[in-house]
């Protein structure tokens, strides 16, 4: 234990160690970039890990075409500012078939996210992909290794994970297999926010409360980001001061009514939170174990 290192210093050191190990040992790594706050922290850590070098791997954004506009603007601005390689992947088959979150439900998530991610990883032959997943997010994630093995079909076998001892990560894979690597495994939502504040990390403005056009649907507050969102009978667009605790596809990401306009206010709200963050993801409420099922099938 290093008594002079703060809790955040320890988490930062651990994440940087992991990121450097991947760069040193894995053949063709990529960092998944979802534009959310966890991705922003992970990108920031990658920039720090290799300084004065740039990160020696590209970044990949799997675009479902249903992301908030502000997210895409932010992504393009950051990539340019930092001088990093940003790959965008869209499942064109899905687009051609008109797959959308309103008509296709969980099939949409599978086709535009899970399948799309697999397509991208196969196409570029990436052997290791960093993800911003944290163990405090969900029960099955709480059991996942930092270096998480995927077979040729990108599937995770939770009953047969390889032991992971100390910092001696086993990065060995055979051809066609790959790794998912989670440098933020041991961070909590609170750690993420405190680190964003400490490091002054740029995040998408959607995290801050602002008056936005929304509709209420199935108990969730959904933002009307463009005219593809069709109002159902009885629904009306309201302007409410909301913010988002997680970012994803706008029709699937519930906002929360909030007055938190600054990082400090967000942190206060988070520390006093009575609801863990994934409840604002609509798809999670289906059934206990839904996340594990999706992960086994290759969802990140």
């Amino acid at each position, binding site marked *: 234990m290093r008594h002079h290192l703060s809790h955040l210093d320890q988490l930062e050191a651990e994440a940087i160690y992991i990121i450097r190990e991947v760069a040193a040992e894995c053949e063709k790594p990529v960092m998944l970039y979802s534009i959310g706050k966890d991705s922003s922290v992970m990108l920031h850590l990658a920039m720090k890990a290799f300084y004065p070098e740039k990160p020696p791997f590209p970044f990949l954004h799997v675009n479902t075409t249903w992301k908030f506009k502000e997210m895409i603007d932010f992504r393009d601005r950051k990539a340019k500012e930092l001088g990093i390689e940003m790959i965008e992947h869209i499942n064109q088959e899905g687009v051609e078939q008109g797959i959308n979150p309103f008509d296709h439900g969980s099939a949409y998530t599978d086709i535009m996210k899970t399948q799309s991610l697999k397509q991208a990883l196969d196409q570029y032959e990436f052997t290791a992909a960093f993800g911003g997943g944290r163990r405090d997010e969900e029960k099955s994630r*709480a059991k996942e290794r930092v270096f998480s093995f995927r077979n040729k079909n990108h599937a995770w076998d939770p009953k047969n994970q390889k*032991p992971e001892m100390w910092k001696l990560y086993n990065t060995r894979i055979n051809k066609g297999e790959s790794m998912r690597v989670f440098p933020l495994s041991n961070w909590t939502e609170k750690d993420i926010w405190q680190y964003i504040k400490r490091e002054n990390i740029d995040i998408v403005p959607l995290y801050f409360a602002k008056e936005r056009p929304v509709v209420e649907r199935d108990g969730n507050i959904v933002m009307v980001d463009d005219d593809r969102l069709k109002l159902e009978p009885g629904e009306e667009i309201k302007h409410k001061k909301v913010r988002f605790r997680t970012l994803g596809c706008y029709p699937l990401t519930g906002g929360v009514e909030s007055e938190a306009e600054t990082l400090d206010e967000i942190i206060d709200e988070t520390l006093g939170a009575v609801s863990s963050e994934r409840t604002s993801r609509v798809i999670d409420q289906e059934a206990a174990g839904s996340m594990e099922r999706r992960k086994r099938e290759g969802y990140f």
Partner: protein
Amino acid sequence: MKGLLKFITCGSVDDGKSTLIGHMLYDAKLLFADQEKALELDSKVGSRGGEIDYSLLLDGLMAEREQGITIDVAYRYFTTDNRSFIVADTPGHEEYTRNMAVGASFADLAVILVDATKGVITQTKRHARICALMGIKHVVLAVNKMDLIGFDQKRFEEIKNDFLQMTYGFNLESVQVIPVSATEGDNITKNSENTLWYDGKALLPYLEDIEVEEDVDQEEFVMPVQRVSRPNHTFRGFQGQVEAGHIKVGDELITLPSQEKANVKSILVTDHEVSEAGAGQPVTVQLDREVDVSRGCVITTSENIQVTDMFTATILWMDDTELVEGRNYLVKVGTKLLPGTVMSIKNKIDINTGKEVPADKIFKNELVECDISLSENMVFDKFENNEALGGLILVDRVTNMTSACGVIKHELRRSTNVVWQDTDVTREVRAQQKGQKPLTLWFTGLSGSGKSTLANEVEKRLVATGHHTMLLDGDNVRHGLNKNLGFKEQDRVENIRRIAEVGKLMNDAGLIALTSFISPYDSDRQNAREIIGDSYIEIFVSTPLEVCEERDVKGLYKKARAGEIPNFTGISSPYEKPENPEIEIDTSKYSLEEATDYVVKEIMKYLD
């Protein structure tokens, strides 16, 4: 506020680990409302009736819920007013011991549970032993299900004593034994009314207070190199995490295994330039000169970090297939990954007793002591000195499974012709350690021929050139080892036999022995040659009798001529000249320096 505490819960299945942590989080109001709701919901459909089943909070995998057991480690994060915690809840089934070890390698403290109705059982011992192996120094024994034995203090004390006896010798810094009930909540977050006889803290307050930090700041600086950063021609930085000690700009470092010295030119902690850095920090270090350093090398200020291609380790075998002697694996220590072979399985460690027992075959979840030989040199330290350079994993080269984890006990050196099925440290190993070929340089010749003077000079030369030697002088040995022997023929035979045996022992120890005895009988010298074997080098100091008698350094010839010394070689007892000595020198023809030059030159032929 105290620093982060990483701890694990372990113990046998159904001892109530998940329930304990679940209850702790629930009572300490550390759950989010929706998790609490989900917990109550899950409990209703679960198999344990309508009561809240706290273990459902942690048993996250579907298979675990179905079987009601914990397969893999679950990590939980919580913060009280006093401390932040990461708890790894580990599986109790023997089948999943390797997952328990994963948790143990991560933690600073272990909460080991026992069922009060069962006491300390094999699985308790297995887990305690693995915790100790993985370097955990602080242990809490939670004696659970106290409610089922009516909070019986006597039974509690028995279990406590069993555990303390078992862990004696584990090198633990603290052990606390607490009576609890995970389902009822006794002594979890506050002291229970049911155990007024218990005067220690309840579990959570104990965990909030305990000090587990080790002061690694005072140690020598150690940094295994993760990667070399070369963004341009002017910058070459070594990136890694400082594992111990600290450095400042200007400090002199040693690179390993290349053993070069260089000074620190600049230090970056992440993207900040700093003048010094310490343990735990991610750094990029530039040195003031070109050195041969790449990933897997170590930069350090320590003189004690070792470089070897063979070591002895205690490992936990984690693969479903058996451990086979002579199989090749990839060995990872620090940031170095190398092919290596498990050369010999020395023994396995009995989980119950901790005793070493002979082992033919090693199966999953067994603790084994073995020798591992590497394809090239690797930088390491004993695990007890430095976890980062003393922990290892073995990776199967075909399946890529992490087949074993372990800790390095000590190094071994390889010899060119050692048969390693023989597990003993051999004569060759010791010789290799000294970097020389052991010889017995047997100086023979008349009294006064100059044997001792010459042997003395030769030894000085050998030592000066880095050899390890031992001079056995006739007169000196007679004062100690052979003081019960006289000068009759049978005593002289025994005298020489003993000297030869001692020479052989010296050779076995890797030393070059020099013996200086008259040893007049051919049969005795033959005997010595047989005892000592190939290492025997006979040096006949052939100075003529007249010269010896004229020198008469000790006045012995005079006494012998006067009949005062019976059986004096050359006078009243024969000297049988060696027929084919390896080296012959007549000191009457050369100066001491010339004679020494000649003999050393001849010896070198046998040393190469």
